[in-house]
């Protein structure tokens, strides 16, 4: 039964711990995960805003740069007449004037027929005498008037792109090569995050400026982004955030690529902080839940134990009362016929002297038989009286009790056992002890328990001292032994129901618990202590009362 109970309490403790823990931690987990999710969303939004700002700015810068080059050439065309561009000398002057910024590499004049008229720049050897009539860009210029080419290697075997303009009459074409490094550098400041990228692609997805991450080509998903759109478009593909915008020429797409995890530093920090807080809170909850459930279960266990003890005590009292009633009933029933026998014998005894002894042969025998019948009936009567007395005591009626008598009567039950174990019982009774209203039978139950414990503690060859005295308004009954005394640990549990130091099956562990209960209902107290010279001493004090307690009404029989 004990194992079953303890496993039940263990289960209960685990269940309570889990419930308390979950109740505490679940809301926190929900709040924390919401907060983490939100902060990630906010961080990504921040990245989008940053990316769109950067790309808008770069878009303006690049457009301005290209516009500037175109404006420069158109200014030259409108300022100077055609002859001025046809000779290398005059072209050289112009080149020197406009190449101060370093963004222009060369300047070249081509006739409408495609024939080169003049060239100023570092690639004279490669381009001299070339005819551009078949070049696509050349035809484009003639058609549109202004043209910005894709990057191409051309005759120079170096990636470059050109800006070309024709005069309003379309009689010649002025062309300049843009310094790739100057142009490329315009994109460098567009990089966001360590793994960020910024580059320009043409409509067919070829990279026009070198990727900062050294990409060679776009992947399939990135190709999807080549759709024409106005303004800035933000697209997320997995961990990558793309910001794209078409440049003014509509041939180039400026693409900004942000690796999202690069930009989540503050989010990561928030995440770590939240996790640490959750771990700390969880452990605090776990510890609290553990101790709380431990506390609650131990209380429940104690309450269970106490109620079981109470039940057993009640059952015991009930049993004793039943035995008492039974005994009283039997005694009463037997008593009546006994009394009738006695009365009849008495009548015989009265009549016998009237007979003449001489005529009655067995006169003497009759007399002695009558005496014997009387003797044995009286013996039986003593037994029935005892039974009736026992029943009376069990009915827990208050009566005038001389505690010394109760001590002596109780002791008479144990005298044999004490003698057998060679234990000396010393009595130290106060002869002037007053009587008090109390329940003798229950007091006897307590004393019997204490004496029994004392004899058990002494074991063999010891002394048990019982003393009574008056302490102010109380009667004090002391039971001392010279046994081993009570261990400090045991002392704390000594009054607990079911606590016993006796070997299994010998003690119920209820004796002292019940005794304490009885003495308390009498309005007294019971204490345990160790004597300095060794051994234990139990002291029972009960108040001296001349009248019954008002709440204890007499029960008529």
């Amino acid at each position, binding site marked *: 039964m004990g194992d079953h109970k303890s496993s039940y309490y263990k289960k209960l403790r685990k269940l309570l711990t889990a419930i308390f823990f979950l109740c505490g931690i679940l809301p926190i987990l929900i709040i924390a995960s919401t907060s983490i999710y939100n902060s990630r969303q906010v961080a990504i939004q921040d990245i989008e805003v940053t990316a769109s700002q950067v790309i808008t700015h770069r878009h303006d810068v690049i457009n301005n740069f290209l516009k500037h080059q175109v404006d420069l050439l158109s200014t030259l065309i409108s300022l100077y007449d055609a002859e001025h561009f046809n000779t290398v000398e005059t072209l050289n002057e112009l080149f020197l004037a406009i190449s101060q910024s370093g963004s222009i590499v060369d300047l070249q004049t081509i006739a409408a027929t495609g024939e080169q008229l003049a060239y100023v720049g570092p690639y004279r050897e490669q381009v001299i005498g070339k005819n551009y009539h078949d070049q696509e860009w050349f035809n484009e210029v003639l058609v549109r008037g202004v043209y910005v080419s894709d990057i191409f290697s051309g005759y120079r075997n170096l990636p470059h792109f050109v800006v070309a303009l024709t005069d309003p009459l379309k009689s010649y074409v002025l062309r300049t090569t843009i310094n790739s490094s100057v142009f490329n550098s315009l994109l460098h400041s567009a990089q966001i995050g360590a793994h960020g990228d910024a580059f320009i692609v043409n409509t067919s997805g070829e990279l026009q400026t070198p990727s900062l991450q050294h990409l060679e080509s776009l992947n399939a998903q990135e190709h999807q982004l080549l759709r024409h759109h106005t303004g800035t478009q933000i697209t997320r593909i997995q961990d990558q955030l793309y910001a794209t915008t078409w440049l003014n020429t509509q041939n180039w797409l400026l693409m900004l690529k942000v690796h999202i995890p690069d930009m989540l530093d503050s989010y990561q920090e928030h995440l770590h902080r939240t996790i640490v807080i959750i771990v700390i809170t969880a452990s605090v909850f776990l510890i609290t839940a553990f101790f709380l459930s431990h506390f609650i279960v131990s209380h429940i266990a104690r309450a269970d134990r106490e109620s079981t003890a109470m039940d057993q005590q009640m059952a015991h009292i009930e049993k004793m009362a039943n035995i008492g009633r039974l005994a009283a009933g039997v005694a*009463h029933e037997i*008593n009546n016929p006994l009394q*009738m026998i006695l*009365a*009849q014998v008495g009548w015989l005894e009265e009549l016998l002297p009237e007979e003449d002894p001489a005529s009655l042969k067995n006169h003497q025998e009759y007399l002695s038989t009558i005496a014997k019948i009387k003797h044995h009936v009286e013996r039986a009567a003593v037994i029935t009286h005892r039974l009736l007395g026992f029943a009376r005591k069990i009915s827990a009626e208050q009566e005038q009790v001389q505690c010394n008598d109760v001590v002596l009567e109780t002791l008479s039950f144990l005298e044999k056992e004490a003698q057998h174990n060679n234990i000396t019982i010393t009595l130290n009774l106060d002869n002037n002890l007053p009587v008090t209203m109390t329940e003798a039978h229950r007091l006897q139950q307590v004393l019997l328990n204490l004496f029994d414990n004392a004899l058990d503690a002494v074991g063999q060859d010891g002394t048990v001292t019982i003393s009574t005295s008056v302490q102010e308004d109380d009667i004090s009954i002391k039971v001392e032994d010279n046994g081993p005394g009570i261990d400090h640990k045991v002392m704390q549990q000594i009054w607990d129901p079911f606590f016993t130091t006796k070997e299994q099956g010998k003690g119920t562990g209820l004796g002292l618990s019940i005794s304490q209960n009885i003495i308390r209902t009498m309005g007294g107290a019971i204490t345990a202590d160790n004597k300095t010279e060794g051994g234990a001493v139990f002291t029972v004090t009960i108040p001296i009362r001349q009248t019954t307690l008002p709440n204890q009404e007499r029960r008529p029989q």
Partner: protein
Amino acid sequence: MTRYNVLVVDDEQDFRDIMVKKLQKRNLQCDAAEDGEVALQMFKPGKYDVVLLDVKMPGRDGIEILKEMKKIAPLTEVVMLTGHASVESGIDGMKYGAFDYLMKPMDMERLMEKLDAAHERKRVQEEKIEMAQIKRHMVMPG
């Protein structure tokens, strides 16, 4: 020669019989009744000096019969007989005017003492009344 009249009321036949025999042997005029109703039928003022009345009887119990008898003849003394378990009723009976109570089993000596004492009291009371009446006659002759 009978000293005085006694009525024994008890539900047990053997007890009544032996009581009657023993009391008659001690020169008392003795009648017996098996329950309260019979006892009340037999009971007349001045017929019995002392009643020996069992507290516990089937039908009407001793206390009730005691009250009735005290109404009919207040001077008649009643000694209650109680069992072990009915001492309280005996004490109650004294509150309603019983002379005393005796716990069964009683020995004859104590019974006789109680009966004699009860009779003596009745006699003294009657004497007092007689004296009072004589005094009254003397104060107011005629």
